[in-house]
């Protein structure tokens, strides 16, 4: 039997699938279901220092080849979320990655510190949300500030991942973060987009702009993962963007991802998507003669 276990910056994952940030990520009950569905790790929804109500609906719309959302980083704030994190730790055995958000390095550090106290086993810095001004992509443009947050959070003794966006100079940001001690990267966040209803003759999202996700962005995400792996072959990558089955997961792994995020395509396939990916990976490995996921990571780079 091929082995699906992977090692991700010191975290041991029973398989390479990770629930991506932003979906299903605020409740311990749902986290438990994600674990039961087969996920190898769980990323929380992005949590900030203060509670955020997010934007008014419509905040999400299904499009022909993907999904557009502008939820607006709605979350209960780290103090309230601490209880949920503790319960997640009690009920789950897969690693829990806290997605930390904020408008400054100081806020990121504060959220991460509290989250780790409450049980998070790793931190992912969301410096790439495309629809909240001052908190997402804009912060990611300030590479030195992000790097300083990475340095401080690294001292908490847990792996730190930086979530990248195509809207960044992501190679430069990645380099600055690695120099500051980042453990690895999550790539990519949603891509800034918008949709207009031609009969309403108005933008669909209340926020006008949103983040585009789903299978349409997969080739873009695979390209970023490939570039990152080429530039920093030793930095583990969680590849995210339109993973809708085992073939997509494999593409990310071959491009250089050690783990693969599963997100909005759950809208179409529901939680059964995890099992579908895992069974597909196993069958592929058996058929193609691979014993472990590690053998496949970055394989597309070698001649």
């Amino acid at each position: 039997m091929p082995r699906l276990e992977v090692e991700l910056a010191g975290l041991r994952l029973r398989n390479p699938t990770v629930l991506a940030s932003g979906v299903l990520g605020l409740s311990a009950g749902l986290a438990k279901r994600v674990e039961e569905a087969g996920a190898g790790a769980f990323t929380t929804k992005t949590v900030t220092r203060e509670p955020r109500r997010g934007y008014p609906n419509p905040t999400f719309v299904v499009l022909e080849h993907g999904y557009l959302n502008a939820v607006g980083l709605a979350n209960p704030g780290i103090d309230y979320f601490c209880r949920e994190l503790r319960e997640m730790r009690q009920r789950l055995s897969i690693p829990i990655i806290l997605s930390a958000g904020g408008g400054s390095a100081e806020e990121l550090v504060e959220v991460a510190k509290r989250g780790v106290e409450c049980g998070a086993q790793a931190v992912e810095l969301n410096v790439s949300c495309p629809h909240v001004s001052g908190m997402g992509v804009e912060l990611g443009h300030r590479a030195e500030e992000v790097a300083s947050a990475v340095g401080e959070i690294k001292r908490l003794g847990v792996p730190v991942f930086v979530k990248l966006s195509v809207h960044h100079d992501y190679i430069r940001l990645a380099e600055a973060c690695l120099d500051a001690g980042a453990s690895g990267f999550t790539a990519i966040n949603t891509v800034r987009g918008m949709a207009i209803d031609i009969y309403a003759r108005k933008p669909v999202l209340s926020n006008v702009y949103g983040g585009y996700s789903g299978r349409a962005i997969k080739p873009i995400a695979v390209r970023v993962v490939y570039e990152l792996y080429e530039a920093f072959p030793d930095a583990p990558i969680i590849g995210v963007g339109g993973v809708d089955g085992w073939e997509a997961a494999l593409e990310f792994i071959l491009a250089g991802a050690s783990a693969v995020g599963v997100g909005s395509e759950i809208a179409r396939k529901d939680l059964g998507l995890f099992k579908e990916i895992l069974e597909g990976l196993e069958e592929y490995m058996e058929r193609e003669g691979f014993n472990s996921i590690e053998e496949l990571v970055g394989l597309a780079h070698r001649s």
Partner: protein
Amino acid sequence: MGLEPKSAGPRSAQSAGFRLRAGHARGAVVGARVAAKQVLELKLEVDLDEPEPGQFVMLWVPGVGEVPMSIADYDGGVLTMYITRRGRVTGYLHDHVREGVRLFVRGPYGRGFSAIERGRALLVGGGTGAAPLHFLAKRLRERGVDCVAALGFRSAEHAILLGEMARLCRVEVATDDGSMGFGGPVHEVAAKLLSEERFDAVYACGPEPMIAAVLELARSKGVPFEASLERYMRCAVGVCGSCVLEPLGLRVCRDGPVFSGEVLSRVEDLGRWWRDADGRLVPLR
């Protein structure tokens, strides 16, 4: 035959062949009238995939907002909804929407009621909770199932769907102020019906304390039960997690909005907690 047994664990009833239409369907308002105090009856001509009773739609008013809405009927391409004035979007609908206006809908979404094939059904509704029960009653009657509907309202002025329901089921009315029918909570009417008559299924929709009370009654009589719940929703397709019920992690939009009695008896949030837009639990008002 009762309701098919439902496992309380994770379900992915829609995993196979779940069709997601892109964008919103546009509809023209073909009827907008005040059906009762603070309740607007809205009829929208709109092309949707055939909804099941208990499913819901997201109703979008461009420039104003989008809200989940239960389906009272979908017949000949006309979607009927009963809308209580509550917030920004429903207030706008009450004040500004007239015949001819264009509105937008996505859905139908979620898991609806499992209508029994034969026997007798008790439908218990509170306020606009009567709306999805009307759609269900139509389905039950098509199958030849007898139904009794116990419908509760604040007062006679708030009552909706009485005539329509009377064409499908025997109707018993309760009002809080006694201005029509039994004076008191509708679950007391349900209790009397359940003790005096035999039912093969109980269906409920309305305020959660009422649902919790009827769930207890149905359980004590050993009658299969289903109820439709409501929560703050965003995506409506099961990915954002805004509408989750604890401790089971059930998404009202995707695993529900209709849940079985076995499941609901394990939902600690039932009748107690509402999840706010920021994800915090607040006491259910």
